[in-house]
């Protein structure tokens, strides 16, 4: 691993534990009722639901275990690290799958030359041990920044915590504007599950009574700081709302989970919250499921395909390649639940080829892999809020999320240029690194003083817009390129359409308009769209519906073609609205598991 002992924590214990666990679980260790693939938001919730219902479940996780106490270095100061948490070129991990965690990316390496067109590279010493090495996990096709974390808990170890419900505007989007199709059910169907997720996992926020972002069952909300209150007042006059962030974080504590404590406001959650106030799948779901005695966990287990039981025509189980030993093993169970993350679950199905399913399992419609969607991002604006220019800094970031400006386009009005809409996330005040310093002209004492002067007054917002679900935006398996374990790589066929480009333009315009209304100084607008994939909110590719010719799964996320295979992640989602995906993955998965529990109960 690390060549420099000061760069990283020592992972020897957790690596050893992972190998020991993997070796201890063989196909003969069963029987299991169900196999769950993956342990992120989807796999974690699936395993938790099944284990708590007394169902024997095997969780197959491609990555290693995570030692949350040591790996979540929540409060480490940059100056505790000689490189200030940046990685030297040979240590970087999150390469092609770009994401700006800390600051502008590090590193280049000749082996990445062929990928240069794809993306700029990022990486820092907090997340590099979780995200995949692109050399082992190549992708092909059109540029797509596919961020993947192969470790217990997946991307929930460092997700952004913004926890928003889908609402009627998403479920019935097609009825409102005539594009594509509605979800097979409405908000009322999912609402009870969102409620249960809120109570089980804890979410902080305020009740606002907005259809675009329906209210949940909230714990103590995180307040707004001065510049945000000022901005809120200004945009309220335009009929827009700035509301406190809704965070997948427990502020009042959750019942019956010894791995979690309530939020103490350090504001360092993206490195993993070491006290478990943030929802991370390991502490929130996987460890409690394990404690039930009904869950077996096998790390280092890469699912390559779901195999068919020729006698019944149903799935027989999951073929696994051990990530370390490369041993191939077939694990059997009555049902298979895929929660490897939208694109990896779809990839497994595409790779599950048999004479009966020559184009992949569940693909009789030919739509497996189609309708890839996410959120387009990039347009953003910033400025300084006059009421805080030149004041002493206050504690402005001691909370897990900044505020949220819910979608205001195509809610009651109709925009002439585009359908659907976008929301903004952002906020301001002083934070650890004075990002505005890079834009301050000059040098010397005057420069230094002006960095301080504007430090508490910073404010910025960035948009997240709906990407229309379109059939031609899809993934397939690459014919020649394979990953380090011989599994065909994902090939992207994905482009933004005119609707996204026009919406992005409007994002930049409204960001500008609102900053002006707030009287912000030195307004800067960046209208540039970020590359596809940047939102890390991928959905679709195995969409649900009642018509087996027009969808891959039924309304319970079960393959039309093979009824004992379920999808627990965002692959069945029909459209993604502007909402961050995770809370909906959790609610949908709970609903799917309730259906599965009932099936298992009535079948035996």
């Amino acid at each position: 691993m690390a060549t420099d002992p000061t760069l990283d924590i020592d992972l020897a214990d957790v690596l050893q534990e992972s190998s020991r666990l993997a070796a201890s679980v063989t196909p003969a260790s069963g029987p299991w009722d169900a196999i769950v693939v993956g342990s992120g938001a989807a796999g974690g919730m699936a395993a938790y639901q099944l284990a708590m219902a007394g169902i024997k479940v095997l969780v197959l996780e491609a990555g290693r275990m995570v030692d949350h106490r040591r790996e979540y270095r929540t409060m480490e100061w940059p100056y505790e690290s000689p490189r200030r948490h940046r990685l030297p070129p040979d240590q970087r991990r999150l390469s092609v799958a770009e994401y700006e965690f800390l600051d502008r990316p590090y590193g280049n390496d000749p082996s990445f030359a062929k990928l240069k067109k794809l993306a700029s590279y990022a990486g820092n010493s907090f997340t590099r041990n979780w995200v995949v090495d692109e050399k082992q996990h190549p992708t092909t096709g059109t540029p797509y920044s596919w961020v993947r974390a192969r470790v217990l808990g997946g991307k929930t170890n460092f997700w952004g915590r913004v926890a928003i419900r889908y609402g009627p505007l998403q479920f019935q989007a097609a009825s409102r504007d005539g594009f594509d199709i509605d979800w097979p059910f409405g908000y009322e169907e999912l609402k009870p599950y969102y409620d249960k997720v809120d109570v089980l996992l804890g979410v902080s926020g305020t009740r606002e009574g907005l259809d675009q972002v329906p209210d949940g069952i909230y714990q103590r909300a995180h307040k707004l700081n001065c510049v945000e209150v000022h901005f809120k007042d200004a945009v309220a006059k335009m009929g827009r709302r700035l509301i406190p962030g809704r965070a997948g974080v427990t502020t009042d504590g959750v019942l019956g989970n010894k791995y979690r404590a309530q939020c103490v406001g350090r504001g360092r959650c993206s490195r993993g919250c070491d006290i478990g106030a943030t929802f991370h799948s390991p502490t929130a779901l996987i460890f409690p499921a394990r404690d039930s005695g009904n869950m077996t966990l096998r790390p280092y287990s890469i699912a390559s395909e779901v195999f068919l039981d020729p006698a019944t025509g149903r799935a027989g189980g999951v073929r696994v390649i051990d990530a370390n030993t490369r041993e191939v093993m077939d694990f059997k169970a009555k049902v298979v639940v895929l929660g490897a993350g939208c694109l990896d679950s779809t990839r497994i199905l595409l790779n599950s080829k048999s004479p009966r399913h020559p184009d992949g399992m569940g693909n009789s419609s030919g739509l497996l892999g189609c309708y890839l969607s996410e959120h387009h991002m990039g347009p953003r604006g910033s400025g300084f809020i006059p009421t805080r220019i030149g004041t002493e800094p206050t504690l402005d970031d001691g909370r897990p999320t900044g505020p949220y400006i819910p979608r205001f386009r195509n809610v009651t009005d109709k925009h002439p240029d585009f359908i659907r809409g976008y929301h903004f996330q952002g906020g301001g005040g002083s934070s650890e690194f004075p990002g505005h310093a890079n834009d301050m002209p000059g040098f010397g004492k005057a420069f230094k003083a002006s960095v301080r002067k504007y430090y508490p007054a910073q404010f910025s917002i960035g948009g997240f817009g709906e990407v229309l679900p379109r059939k031609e935006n899809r993934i397939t398996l690459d014919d020649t390129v394979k990953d380090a374990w011989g599994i065909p790589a994902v090939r992207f066929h994905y482009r933004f359409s005119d609707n996204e480009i026009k919406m992005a333009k409007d994002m930049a315009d409204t960001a500008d308009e609102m900053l002006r209304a707030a009287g912000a100084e030195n307004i800067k607008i960046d209208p540039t769209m970020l590359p596809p994939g940047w939102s890390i909110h991928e959905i679709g590719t195995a969409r649900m519906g009642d018509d087996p010719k027009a969808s891959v799964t039924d309304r319970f996320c079960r393959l039309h073609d093979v009824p004992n295979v379920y999808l627990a992640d965002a692959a069945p989602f029909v459209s993604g609205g502007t909402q961050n995906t995770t809370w909906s993955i959790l609610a949908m998965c709970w609903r799917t598991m309730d259906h599965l529990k009932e099936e298992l109960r009535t079948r035996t």
Partner: protein
Amino acid sequence: MKMPLVTRRTALKALGATALLPWLTDAGLAEFAVVQAKKAPPRLKVLTPTQYRTVDALVEAIIPRDERSPGASEARVADYIDLLLSEADAPLRKQWLAGLHALDAEAVTRFRAPLVRLSEKQMTALLTDVSRYETATKPAPDPALQVARNEQPQPPQVDTLLGDVNLPRERPLLEAFFADTKQATIHGYYTSEIGIQQDLRYKGNTFVPEFVGCETEVGKDCPHCGRKAKA
């Protein structure tokens, strides 16, 4: 040096968490503490002692000591730049060192003294010239270039803190060097203990039972922004 490891561990204990192992080795921490201590000699990886002194003078001119806090020199930004250089790719290292050499040569041409021996006034005059582009009005961007990034090549993969060898050099060498060095200085200074704690007086990364930002949110007049509580 403050010992945040201890603070954090103690704090976690108070919260009922089990003891943590340090994530930096003791040796690593100790070495870093030495570098942070003002007068410890630098352990140079790339820069010669002369170059180091030049860089030290330059970064201190960019972020100097003032009445509130020490500057980039005491924050050991030159050491940080040396570390960045040691891990940068050869072309980038070469480009940056060429810039350093050129700025020093410019000082000699204009003032018959290298950077380290310039008076404050001379240094200011020199840096004012090479940073003038920052406030010059920029030509409006060509709207034809404002296209979605479906096909557009992405920024190249170098550590852009010290500059970017793959970007077309739009500026003269001295200006480009100033821009790159200023960026690295900003990063090095404001990630240092001096920058964060003494200069910015950053208040976060601590335990707060309940976050209160603007005090009007809890029904009081706010002393920080002057907003009045709603009656």
